[in-house]
């Protein structure tokens, strides 16, 4: 038993040991790359990989935010609708400002979309924490509200970006920095910033504590309301950043933008090793999870084994397997 050990023999450094739960998503990622290569050597080409990772960027960025929410013991179902709504707000305001500001309207639009994202997150957070409504129900409500708002704003059609801005804005999705596509760079920056907040600041420590056991956190003098609300605000900001990357790719916001993203986002977080009931968050696992989801979709397109119409089904199977692995490894 631990309690009878003499003090002299306390180990100072943790033994070097691979934590298989933590390493899981990366091993899965490597295995997937190998399978992909065997199925179709084209799969591992730099071009294809860059393409896949770029496409996974939105989900990755939003899922990084979701890691905070889930780590703090919450859940956000509204991210897909929120993405559509803030994209709509961004395009509308950029288009309105384009006449006066020219291409600087893009900068203004970025500011506006960030504000919109943060406010949407704040609304979610306040409903959950101050209103004391189950996160599932609260964000199910706002999910409907955001989706209805984008449908209303677009009048059921689409909100295209103004022609005068299209070329100036294009590089945010299609450009590259030192050979790396811009969305990948943005994802990495977001993930680095997020892991910094989650692992190196007091807020991050408190966030994991609130998710692990709300009572212990409360008795330790931590404001559960504040910590959870901030997690939703971070989620909102991440949705806004994803929207910024997304606009040049489609050039418009429509009522179907971001449809079912919440499922992919939650799947990425769970595959990444963060427990759905809260506790320690795994930012890089989440990023790997988002890439895995996109890789599988890509693999299904490149191979002829399974119809690509079944992509969502395969992703569904994956989330169940991930949960089973988490359960069995405990």
């Amino acid at each position: 038993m631990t309690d009878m050990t003499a003090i002299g023999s306390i180990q100072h450094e943790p033994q070097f040991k691979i934590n298989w739960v933590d390493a899981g998503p990366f091993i899965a990622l490597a295995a997937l790359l190998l399978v992909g290569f065997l199925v179709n050597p084209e799969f591992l080409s730099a071009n294809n990989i860059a393409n896949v990772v770029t496409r996974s960027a939105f989900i990755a960025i939003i899922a990084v935010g979701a890691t905070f929410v889930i780590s703090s013991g919450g859940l956000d179902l509204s991210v897909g609708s929120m993405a559509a709504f803030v994209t709509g707000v961004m395009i509308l305001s950029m288009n309105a400002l384009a006449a006066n500001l020219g291409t600087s309207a893009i900068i203004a639009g970025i500011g506006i979309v960030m504000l919109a994202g943060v406010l949407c997150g704040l609304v979610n957070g306040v409903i959950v924490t101050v209103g004391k409504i189950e996160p599932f129900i609260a964000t199910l409500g706002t999910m409907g509200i955001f989706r209805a708002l984008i449908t209303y704003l677009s009048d059921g059609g689409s909100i295209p970006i103004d022609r005068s801005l299209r070329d100036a804005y294009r590089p945010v999705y299609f450009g590259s920095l030192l050979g790396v596509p811009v969305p990948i760079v943005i994802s990495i920056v977001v993930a680095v910033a997020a892991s910094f907040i989650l692992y190196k600041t007091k807020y991050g420590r408190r966030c994991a504590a609130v998710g692990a056991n709300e009572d212990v956190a409360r008795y330790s003098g931590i404001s559960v309301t504040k910590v959870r609300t901030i997690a939703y605000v971070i989620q909102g900001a991440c949705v806004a950043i994803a929207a910024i990357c997304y606009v040049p790719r489609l050039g418009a916001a429509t009522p179907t933008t971001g449809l079912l993203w919440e499922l992919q986002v939650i799947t990425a977080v769970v595959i990444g090793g963060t427990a759905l009931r809260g506790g320690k968050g795994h930012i890089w696992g989440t990023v790997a999870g988002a890439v895995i989801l996109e890789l599988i979709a890509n693999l299904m397109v490149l191979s002829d084994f399974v119809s690509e119409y079944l992509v969502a089904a395969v992703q569904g199977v994956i989330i169940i397997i991930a949960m089973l692995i988490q359960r069995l490894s405990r």
Partner: protein
Amino acid sequence: MSGVANGKTEAVAPPHSLVVEAMPRPVLEAKGLAKKYGQVSVLSDVTLDIRAGEVHAIIGENGAGKSTLMRLLSGYVEPTSGSLWMDSAEVVFPKPAMAQASGIVLVHQEILLAEALTVAENLFLGRELTRNGIIDDRTMQRITSSKLAEIGCRVSPSALVRDISLADRQLVQIARALLDNYRLVIFDEPTAVLTSDEVETLLAIIVRLKNQGIAILYISHRLDEVQRLADRVTVLRDGKMIGTYPGRTLSQMDMANLMVGRELATLYPKKSIRCISEPMLEVSGATVPGFVSDISFAVHKGEILGFGGMIGAGRTELFEGILGLRPGTAKLRLRGESIHIRKPLDAIEAGIGYLTEDRKGKGLLLGEQLASNLTLSALSRVHPHRLLRKSRDREALVHAVDTYDIRLKSYSLQAGQLSGGNQQKLLLAKVLLTNPSVVIIDEPTRGIDIANKAQIYSFIHKLVETGKACIVISSEMQELIGICDRILVMREGRISGEVTGADMTENKIALLATSNVSMSKEFQGVRHT
């Protein structure tokens, strides 16, 4: 060690007419029982028997192997070597159900009942009686009534478990265990959550079972109960069997010494005469809706103030209300200055630390590392910079391990991997890291072994010697008497009296805790004045 045990026989051994001269046959025998997990031996070479109509107590510190032994005997764990015998035939229990079929039932320490179901539904959970495939509620209720009456429990079979008291839940759990045929009943720390009155009821039930010729295996931390009940006592230490002794030949101190393996000086530190004059924390008109009404008291610098009373008297709720952990109102003055506490953080910042009674549910993050647990309340104090530094976490932990004698194998353990006593020391260290001037400790030694108890008491004494004030809430009257300078006793949400000095006796406290209680419907058990 044997010198302690065998040397003295109690001068006034109560005449015991029921002592059976011819040894009754053993119901269950264990021969050379051992359990290893990998290379780690948790129990080795235990040989004992439990006879019909006797109470056989197992005592030992936390981690001594009591729970493992109990699990081996009731089929939850299979032994690595050794054998079990019933009626001179060897038996194996690969599953708890098989032990149960042989008449061995285990009354769990934790209350494992479905709160949203009725008493009768709980009793028959998983083995409901049916008639033609339809649930037969009437028969189950009838059997429940008679089973409950058998053990002196007066709750209605149709009451919801969530509406009955903790003590009644414990009794329902016992009734559930006794639904089957039973020859040996194993009680695992049955009195851990009960108040003294409730304990009496339970002990009476155990004596009744014993007189019916049932064999009882009784595992407990409370040596006074063991001394009263046990016909024989087996002592375990560090997974080894120290010996089996006739129950009434051992004093509590003998038992404690056998468990620890060395002479315990005294459990409680000597009370020093401290100058107690300056009020540290003054509380007036504290009200917590539904629990506490209009309580006023003060604790002084250098004083240990006790709060006694029964579970449910509102002691915990009083302090949770004062500290912003639940809705309540109170006027507070700290060192003569008025303070306002709206949320838990206000209390911590004002310098009032609170150690919850619920160590595992509200005190520690069991799945997190020791260091992050330790520093959780004092993050800004430990990490004055914007960023967290591992080295500062580690320094704080090394210091706490050293100061509070937390025994561990590695600094990178999770809090849940420590034993109860060491968890409690970690929690104490966590609260004291916020540098409070008033420390409120709710049930300081619940569920921890005697060596750790003594240490916690000495830490509490050191606290007040450095000029802090300390409030101790406890259901163990001996503990309050042993360490406090003054004891306030609560009953039904009010302070019913104060005892100091030579007045601090169990009788006085018990009287204040229970007197004027009307014969309420939950009331059961024998009243003694």
